[in-house]
């Protein structure tokens, strides 16, 4: 499993990578996961629904992450905004 984070000016970076079946690596993944959530990030797991439809699932704890998930993507939490006029 890889924990990725979107970064301005960079694209995604790998925060942690490991096998959830290996306790030590799972602990590192959990710590990295908590750090990002504590920093106010949202976490999403890209999934593929039956029929091939791509979706995503927002997760609030590491326990919510499917054990077979390949990636968890962190991104800054949504904020209502009115960006500069783009018309």
């Amino acid at each position, binding site marked *: 499993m890889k924990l990725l984070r979107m970064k*301005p*000016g*960079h694209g995604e970076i790998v925060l942690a990578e490991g096998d959830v079946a290996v306790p030590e690596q799972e602990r590192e993944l959990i710590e990295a996961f908590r750090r990002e959530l504590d920093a106010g990030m949202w976490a999403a797991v890209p999934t593929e629904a039956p029929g091939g439809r791509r979706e995503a699932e927002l997760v609030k704890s590491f326990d919510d992450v499917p054990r077979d998930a390949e990636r968890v993507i962190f991104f800054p939490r949504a904020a209502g905004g009115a960006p500069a006029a783009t018309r």
Partner: protein
Amino acid sequence: MGLALDTAAVVLVVLLWELARPTLERALRHGRELWAAHRRGRAPEGYDPGRERRAEQRARALLRSCVSERDWAMYRDLGFLRVWGGLGDHGRGSGAAYAYLIYPHKPIVAYVPQTGELLNEYCVAFPDHSKPYGSSRLPDSDDVLAKWMALSADERRLVGEANMHLPGRQVDPDRVRRDIARLRRWEQQLEREPIHLGRRDRAQGQDPDNIRAA
């Protein structure tokens, strides 16, 4: 007499030089500092003009790996994503009562697919306040992916976080109508020739992640 005058002149020049030297040296030093600052201003130390482009390439690859092949082709060809609304009675999918258009760094626009009527704009951003590279703005395709993930995972939550406005507040309604028409034509073409999905990638013989959205 002449010798005395010459000597006095030389002494005077030396005295004037000694008096003026500190001022001249300060002026020279100041001039050098100004020139160095000017050069730094033109090309800041560590500035990498290709960074944003590489960031966008990475973001496009990540987006492509998350959405369906059809959605990726839509974004690649049209520059936006359409996501079906899931809160109505008709459920998510092509029969949905409404849909969203996701543009990079612009509000999400809700509309009625059957009529093309524009419903609302949802102004939402994903600012990274840690500003790791001096900006809080995600690359374009990361912004689209963040909106897509949040909408497909928890539409109600994202809509709740956004500032809702009537159409036309930020995005030109005529442009949105044109985009809806472009999307309709694109989908008709796709139905006629499904191979269209990956055609441009192959035709241009380059990595699709490097192709800019229209």
